[in-house]
């Protein structure tokens, strides 16, 4: 990153951090004259506490979809407070959303300042929409309440989303950061939460305060269960990732390989428009793609001479045993299948794992994994050669596009990596032969575990076995 770019970002941040709070205070000032503060105050405080709680702890449903019931809380409040005080009451609640534990802990200034203005603008517009619809129709009819709050919640989601996109594009200069097509993804959950929020508000109006503990218990227990579920899922991911990291850390040359391959695979997947579960499957497949190697005795992998057919069989046996173990884990099955095919070629050649026959193209996920794996193998230092340059790796990937690799995946990867401005591999251009020669001289004694290298020798062993 260039210093003048950083300075420009800083100036943009300062401008935003001044403009957003000013707009926020102005809106609150106008509202304070136009509306009454909601009564009873304890009820407002209860809703404000619930709103802040849910803003703090949004639960990750899968990957990028966050379930934040805070919008539902705000819609319930809008219905309960009534048209005379709903906008002011909800805006005052929303303004408290700027209190974020991480921001306070890290003493950040930009996020809280911008969040403050952003939440006030969002709440004013969306609660305004709810109040207008209810004023124009019948504020006591349940269907109208549900409809108004559903529309309000969608407005909330869209305004919030556009404001974030605006801030990001102003500060970081990305033009295409938030295309409208992504809005569809947020609309559906927001419709549901708004609808339910409105109905709960109506329930309160009809039943009185006794409804609050009941609604609170049902939501709180559900929310806690969802949080435990989400934590458990996280635990599962980090257990697997941590294990693999700890095991491969013992080897100098493959240290970090798995994590980088997961990172590159994720990058390609995202660039090719994957999201949610599909993207997660790609990442998990990358994470487990070399687990089988952990069970192979090191002396077998480091053997300098060609593997005998028996040794090759032994190595494959270990790898298959581990694949079998992972297949016992129900949700890992699709990932094991993808991982087992990461050495299969686009044109049907190469080494095939489960469920793909010789001559068939592997799945798109396996093709992505193949490109990510080979790129990392080329751009990191191995026992048999020092790291190659990124340009060299790109040329190699393109050269084998159509045969070993899927050309579309290769182009997507090159675009994504160039777009992100990241650089891997050696900074000095050297040829493959030169890289090998230097490795021989410099690190001739060291021979470490390397998936590509080992596989290559293993393939030779297999050919001998069949020949």
């Amino acid at each position: 990153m260039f210093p003048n770019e950083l300075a420009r970002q800083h100036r943009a941040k300062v401008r935003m951090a001044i403009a957003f709070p000013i707009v926020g205070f102005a809106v609150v000032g106008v509202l304070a004259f136009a509306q009454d503060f909601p009564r009873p105050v304890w009820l407002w405080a209860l809703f404000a506490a619930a709103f802040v709680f849910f803003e703090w702890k949004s639960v990750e449903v899968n990957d990028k979809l966050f379930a934040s019931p805070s919008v539902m809380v705000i819609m319930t409040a809008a219905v309960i407070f009534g048209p005379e005080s709903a906008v002011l009451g909800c805006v005052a609640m929303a303004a408290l959303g700027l209190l974020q534990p991480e921001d306070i802990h890290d003493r950040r200034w930009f996020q809280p300042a911008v969040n403050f203005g952003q939440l006030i603008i969002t709440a004013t517009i969306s609660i305004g929409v709810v109040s207008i619809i209810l004023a124009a129709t019948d504020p006591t009819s349940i269907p109208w309440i549900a409809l108004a709050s559903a529309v309000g919640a969608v407005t909330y989601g869209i305004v919030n989303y556009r404001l974030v996109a605006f801030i990001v594009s102003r500060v970081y200069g990305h033009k295409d950061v938030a295309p409208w097509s992504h809005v569809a993804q947020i609309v559906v959950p927001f419709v549901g939460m708004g609808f339910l929020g409105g109905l709960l508000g109506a329930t309160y109006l009809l039943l009185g305060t006794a409804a609050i503990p009941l609604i609170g218990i049902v939501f709180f227990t559900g929310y806690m269960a969802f949080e435990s579920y989400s934590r458990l899922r996280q635990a599962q991911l980090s257990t697997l990732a941590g294990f693999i990291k700890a095991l491969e850390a013992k080897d100098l040359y493959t240290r970090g390989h798995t994590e980088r391959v997961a990172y590159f695979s994720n990058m390609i997947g995202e660039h090719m428009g994957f999201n949610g579960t599909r993207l997660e499957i790609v990442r998990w497949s990358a994470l487990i793609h070399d687990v089988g190697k952990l069970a192979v005795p090191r002396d077998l992998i480091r053997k300098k001479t060609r593997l005998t057919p028996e040794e090759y069989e032994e190595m494959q046996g270990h790898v298959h045993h581990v694949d079998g173990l992972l297949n016992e884990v129900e949700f890992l099955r699709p990932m094991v299948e993808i991982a087992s095919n990461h050495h299969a070629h686009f044109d049907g050649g190469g080494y095939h794992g489960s469920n793909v026959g010789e001559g068939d193209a592997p799945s798109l996920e396996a093709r992505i994994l193949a490109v990510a794996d080979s790129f990392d193998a080329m751009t990191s230092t191995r026992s048999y050669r020092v790291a190659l340059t990124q340009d060299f790796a790109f040329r190699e990937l393109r050269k084998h596009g159509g045969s070993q690799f899927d050309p579309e995946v290769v182009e997507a990867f090159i675009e994504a990596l160039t777009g992100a401005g990241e650089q891997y591999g050696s900074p000095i251009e050297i040829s493959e032969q030169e890289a090998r020669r230097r490795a021989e001289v410099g690190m001739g004694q060291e021979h470490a575990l390397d998936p590509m290298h080992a596989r290559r020798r293993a393939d030779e062993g297999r050919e001998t076995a069949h020949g």
Partner: protein
Amino acid sequence: MAESRIKVLTIATWFATLVSAGVFVAVGVANAGGDTLPWLLDVALWSIAITALALITVPAPSGSRLSLGIGAGVAASVLLDDPVSLGASISIALVASWLIQRRLGVGVGRRDGDYLADALSMALYGVIYSYSLELIVVSMDLQPTWSVLAAVTLAGLGWFGVRAVVAAFVGLERSDLAGRYLWLLALEDWAVVLSMFAGGALFGLAWSVMGLWAVAVAILPYAFAHTAFERYSSTRVTYGQTIKALAQIPEVAGLAPLGHSTRTSDIAVAIAQEIGLKPTAVTELEYAALMHDVGRITLNEPAILRAGFTDEDIARWGAQIIAEAPYLQRVSELVRLQHRPYRSPGVEFDPDIPMTSKIIKVASAYDQAQIEEGLSPVESLERIHQGSAYEFDPRVAASLRRVLVFRGVIAN
């Protein structure tokens, strides 16, 4: 769980949802007409609705499945005025659902004891609810909705008491499970129970003021909670499977005896349940026992194999590997301590070693004596007893004997 059983369960769930929805729609339509339904029809409709909902079960953290009939019963109690029709509806429904579930075999993971507990506790719930509501309305000047809430709370406590008694009876039957363990396990389910009671009461109250909209108000939030419980329990299963798979890597690599981790964990969990550890500690123990030998993967390195290693090294390496997982810090600590003897030379008693680590040590040694030295179970147990109070904790050794007797592995 067999695939076909899951299929049956899913079909039953959908069927039950449709039937109960149909009943509520019918009641709603009838009420809108202004007629009051005759008593018998009321009871019949509620019986069908509770029966149908009782076929849906939700997995609770303790591993048992709770029936949604609890929530339906609570809703019925709020909506039905007289104790007789309430009692009739609940008892007819419970018997019917019991028969249906036994016939179809849809009550996966449920035992007859669970149905018995359901029937007894819901019946008592109905009785306490009806009489305490009357008492509260007469003696206290509360808003009607608050009176209902108070009565539901009281009756809910009674419900819980019956469950505790039933759990204790089940405990008497199973001498290998400590009463404390069973009781704490039942308490783990509080969140599920609470959400069912609150959901049922919310439905009942909302139905009386907003009709069919109550379905959305009470069912949507409950469905959210239900999904969360469902996902939590399935993730817990796959998390256990993941740990089991990772723990077996040294075994398939030929660095540890095949099946040692699984057998050790099986014995260790049985001992912990017999002694009466907390359910959360039992889960931790299960993971730690599965992974207690994972440090052996380091022996993959020929240099280390040549240099030699001790049990302490294995424990330390294993703990280091496990510590990379942020959520398994406790488990890592247990694995690090599992090689420590009960009494170290010069140390009277080491308070730093948790019970769980001592259990792993015994369970692992018991299995090793059999597979590495070819001893019989009795001889292996004898070996543990020889080291008792020095190498092994005598309480754990005694518990191992009881577990083996209960399982019929050794004669009493």
